[in-house]
């Protein structure tokens, strides 16, 4: 992993189990196996977070595991900022990584594509490619969404673009 990552993130991501099945939602049979691995990894990741009192998201999926949504939050100066996020599993997953969206933040930062998709090009995409197909949704949240929130939320607070939810 590149030197730019904070040691906490590095330690956490090492503890998230790796996935072994290379399959996307178009692979009918194998997708079920991959989905099981995704769920196992996510459960482990949330357990880790709860154990260290650093829980920062919830997540649920539709029945076939192709659409996901949840809430993520970020604490800044003792205030909590909470947002709904969502993403679909792309047809060519896991070659293509999930495109995580926070629609309510659309237009509030330049590090975002239309519709509220967070910009992952620089910090996350190369890592995903290097570890394909062993990274899954849990890794995308840990290495994609979490660092994005850490970089963008304080900036948006300073700009007055967002207000605390507690």
């Amino acid at each position, binding site marked *: 992993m590149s030197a730019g990552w904070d040691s906490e993130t590095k330690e956490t991501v090492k503890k998230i189990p*790796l996935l072994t099945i290379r399959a996307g939602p178009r692979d009918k049979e194998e997708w079920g196996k991959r989905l*099981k691995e995704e769920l196992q990894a996510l459960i482990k990741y949330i357990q880790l977070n709860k154990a260290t009192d650093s829980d920062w998201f*919830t997540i649920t999926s539709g029945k076939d595991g192709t659409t996901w949504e949840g809430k993520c939050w970020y604490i800044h100066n003792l205030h909590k900022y909470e947002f709904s996020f969502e993403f679909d599993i792309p*047809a*060519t997953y896991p070659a293509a*990584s999930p495109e995580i969206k926070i629609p309510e933040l659309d237009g509030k930062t330049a590090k975002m594509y239309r519709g509220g998709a967070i910009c992952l090009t620089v910090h996350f995409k190369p890592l995903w490619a290097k570890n394909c197909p062993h990274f899954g949704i849990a890794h995308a949240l840990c290495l994609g969404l979490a660092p994005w929130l850490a970089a963008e939320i304080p900036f948006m607070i300073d700009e007055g673009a967002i207000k605390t939810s507690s």
Partner: protein
Amino acid sequence: MSVQQPSSQQAPSRPRTEKLSDAVVDTNPYSRLMALQRMGIVKNYEHIRSCTVAVVGMGGVGSVAAEMLTRCGIGRLLMYDYDKVELANMNRLFFRPEHCGMTKTDAAAVTLAQINPDVALEPFTMNITTLKGFDAFKASLTHTDTGKSRVDLVLACVDNYEARITINQVCLELGQIWMESGVSEDAVSGHIQVIIPGDTACFECVPPLVVASGIDERTLKREGVCAASLPTTMGIVAGLLVQNVLKHLLGFGQVTRYLGYASLQDYFPTMAIRPNPECINPLCRQSQAAFKVKAEQEAALQAASAPEEAAPAKADLHEANEWGIEVVADEPSGPAASRAAAALPQGLEYSMPVASMDASNLNRDAVESNDDKLEDLMAQLNAMSK
């Protein structure tokens, strides 16, 4: 969202052309194109009218490529994009301020129908990377009766890896040749690449190849925006792309397999990218095997045919060639071309790392296999999210 029939919005600028004329008169829209035949560059220009090209992504490269193909009189043009035109696009060519708010596909269809009413235009407003989008995209390229591809070429003019991987997969499934194009995020370099399933590297054989910017990465300012763009670089890449398309469709010159453009040094690296026998995409490996069999059969057939046919084919002569001048093609440098694939030429680099994972790491850190049912795991995750 209603899709209006673009051609019904405005009366056509001229009647449709039945047969292309080579008459040199001011009123003939094809006189300069048909002159390519007279000059001996192209054997049968009118063939372009029977060709269908799909342009995926109608941004700074795709919209300009679509206009070039329209002006060249392409038979049928399929256009794909999910985005709308906005003022932030005005630093690039083709779209105009009055198009703002329209979908890129509809705005393009209106303009292109005016420029050349002979071209059959099919706009598709869709995102091809989603599950639904993938199927819709593949269906739109497929002939309903035969199940085979109905297009001669797919052009990738998109700005992201996910869309390129989608095009790669659809084209592998259809055995369809496609051409990739791209412009760097710093707007100063670009590339085009031909992908022939089984013959060349597919998009998953090796990490995407891009032109090195020649700038120290650490001095790049990335704050604030995700990507820069210039009408010049995008116009040049569109021009390089469509030139390669014309050569491929009309059978003239040499179709370049990979051509890079580094504008800061005005450097244009080229190379051939051989397929990877261990490509992670099983369809690519199948295509490679099929291509190998076909190539061997063709070689055997050629060896068995008359010896005079083995002599180098004569280059096209001008129709009126009273001096009997002919140009003899250079010997193709076969071994050199395959060597080039092994090492990247100076100025080219992979845009992403090669996938790699230590097997022992994977054994140690992978999820444990268990007998939990999918539904139970899902319920467990839901319970944690309350």
